[in-house]
């Protein structure tokens, strides 16, 4: 057995016989990825989460009632009608995400504001700042139901009749309109008037005829863009990529700390006393670290495939390439830690902090799109971002081998940089 093989075998046996390290490196990422995957699972079988809000109706108009009824019927909302003080208290206590207040006169002012924009009424939304993402949902749905209710009331309600009557009088009295325009406008309002009367008659007779109403001028069709039409998004795929990357980097830290401990215990001295080149010693570390990282990644993904429905829908070759490049990154990262670290204790804490930072910026915990723009740009200089994105691309995104080239290139580049820094800074003196 050559010296390199002996060192490699020793490292592998040492690592895989350490039950605690194995549990940390395999069971922990699987468990946490399962948790995150379940948390972000948006498959159709899951009941959608409804946003709990309150509505304070101080208007009590027909329009306000229509708004409240519409919002109560919406599947995205869980609406309660409450007094203002009680609603504010529940928002402050975190029980509700927001409270909408329809002030007195809101309905009439909103209808008139369609044609007289200078007198817009205010729809107050008080919200829980820790749940700010819910604000966009509440605002969008409120806008939809307000427009719908105001439009309907203009066509079919008493408010509409009053509005049309007022408008007709104004047109007839206006001295600024020429005769032709006056006639066209009066014809328009006659048509609106007839529609209102038909609606009122239908409502009064209990006729099945549907009164004219306003509605959204479009519907939407949403489709997940995944590896294929028959492949729904699997949130576990991203969770396993993120957690796999995180815990394998932790293993890289252990490799680096292992060198520092070997120094402290005199083992490194004994290795250095043997007729071995520095390249052999470092190569054994890099190869053993890479092999361990590859085996761990394979086991983690095997569990993801077997138990969580994750599939490699993209290029298998690309996946293997990314895995190898990431494994090299892990081992050179470990070597860099060994080169820069002083004591195992101090280095471990610092290395874990650095790794968590890398992983966080890499989008393993929270998708990187929620970061500010500058941070998103910055994260492109973080190798873990490329590892996570690359693994995502080869699994649920189902991209081809060409999509793996950039991640592999970046990961190999960082590996070379880490290795060069490690060799440069490594203290060979005993």
């Amino acid at each position: 057995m050559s010296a390199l093989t002996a060192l490699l075998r020793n490292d592998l046996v040492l690592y895989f016989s350490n039950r605690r390290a194995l549990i940390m490196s395999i069971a922990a990422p699987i468990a946490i990825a399962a948790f995150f995957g379940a948390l972000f699972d948006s498959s159709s079988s899951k009941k959608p989460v409804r946003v709990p809000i309150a509505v304070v109706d101080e208007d009590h108009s027909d329009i306000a009632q229509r708004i409240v009824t519409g919002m109560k019927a919406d599947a995205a909302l869980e609406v309660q009608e409450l007094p203002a003080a009680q609603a504010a208290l529940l928002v402050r206590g975190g029980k509700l995400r927001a409270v909408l207040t329809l002030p007195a006169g809101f309905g009439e002012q909103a209808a008139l504001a369609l044609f007289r924009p200078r007198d817009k009424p205010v729809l107050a939304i008080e919200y829980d700042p820790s749940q700010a993402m819910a604000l966009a949902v509440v605002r969008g749905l409120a806008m939809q139901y307000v427009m719908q209710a105001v439009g309907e009331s203009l066509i079919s309600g008493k408010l509409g009749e009053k509005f049309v009557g007022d408008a007709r009088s104004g047109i007839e009295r206006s001295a600024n309109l020429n005769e032709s325009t006056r006639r066209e406008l009066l014809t328009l309002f006659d048509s609106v008037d007839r529609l209102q009367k038909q609606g009122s008659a239908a409502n009064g007779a209990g006729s099945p005829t549907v009164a004219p109403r306003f509605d959204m001028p479009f519907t939407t069709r949403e489709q997940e863009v995944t590896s294929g039409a028959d492949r729904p998004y699997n949130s576990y795929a991203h969770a396993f990529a993120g957690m796999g990357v995180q815990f394998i980097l932790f293993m890289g830290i252990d490799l680096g700390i292992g060198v520092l401990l070997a120094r402290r215990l005199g083992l490194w001295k004994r290795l250095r006393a043997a007729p071995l080149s520095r390249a052999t010693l470092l190569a054994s570390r890099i190869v053993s670290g890479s092999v361990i990282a590859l085996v761990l990644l394979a086991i983690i993904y095997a569990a993801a495939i077997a138990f969580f429905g994750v599939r490699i829908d993209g290029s298998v070759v690309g996946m293997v390439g990314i895995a190898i490049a990431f494994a090299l990154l892990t081992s050179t990262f470990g070597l860099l830690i060994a080169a820069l670290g002083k004591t195992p204790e101090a280095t471990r804490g610092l290395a874990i902090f650095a790794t968590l930072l890398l992983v966080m910026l890499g989008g393993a915990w929270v998708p990187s799109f929620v970061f500010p723009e500058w941070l998103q740009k910055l994260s492109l200089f973080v190798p873990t971002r490329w590892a996570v994105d690359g693994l995502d691309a080869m699994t649920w995104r189902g991209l081809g081998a060409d999509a793996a080239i950039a991640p592999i290139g970046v990961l190999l580049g960082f590996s070379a940089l880490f290795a060069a820094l490690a060799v440069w800074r490594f203290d060979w003196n005993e």
Partner: protein
Amino acid sequence: MLLDARDLHKSYDSRPAVAGVSLSAAPGEIVGLLGPNGAGKTTTVAMLCGLLTPDRGEVLIGGNAIEGDDSRVKCRIGLVPQDIALYEDRPALSNLRLFGALYGIGGALLDERCRDALALVGLSERARDKPQSFSGGMKRRLNIACALIHDPDLLLLDEPTVGVDPQSRNAIFDNLEALKRRGKALVYTTHYMEEAERLCDRIVIVDHGKVVAGGTLEQLYATLPAAQALQIDVDGAVDLQRLGREPGVGSARQDEGKLFIGVDDLARAGPLLSWLATEGHRVRSITSGRATLENVFLALTGRQMRD
């Protein structure tokens, strides 16, 4: 000479750790490198086995210098580090096999070497046990066995008995004497003078990175002004200057009531006891013996070894 180290110098950040140490060892010889902690012993050993490159001077093993990390000259050296340098999670036999493989040994030869090394240090029965279950003495012995697996001609032992009980220490000494009988050259660093006195054929005393004396025990004792020592328990503070002027007294000091006097002959004990009585000191007890390396170190440096 198997080992010939000449004028070794090594500094760390311009602070000299070793300044002009020369050392040699022949086959079948145990050479002691004796000095207090921080004297430069470990740095010297690191240069002898190629872990450190001297700033100045040279190390020859069988006439060859160690050139490069992968120099085959290293195969002639076995290093026993001061720390217990073992993979404690791997069986004793696996440790031996790993370190053997690093020297290019394999197959039946490696099996044979493992058996021999374990037998020498008395651990044959524990070959498949992990060192983490061993006593401190057993770990130390396995530490030595790992340095022997490639059958080196020169064994460098850096304080190999630190933290070992007397029984295990004697077992280690027996192992080292057996190696000496096999014709190995041993360099044994220690700050325990009694170890050096018992084991070493020649002793090199170092202090502050420099050799302060060297030779056989007899040669070192010959450098003392007094070859014999008296230890007398007396009442009161003795006038050491006047005592030093008494015939045959080479050195005198008093420490916590005990009087240590170096004399050229134990026959001086009677007249000295009389002198103490006339000076008004009551003698409670007296012991005598040959001077030790402690006396030599004290005479050479003005300090005690464990200062």
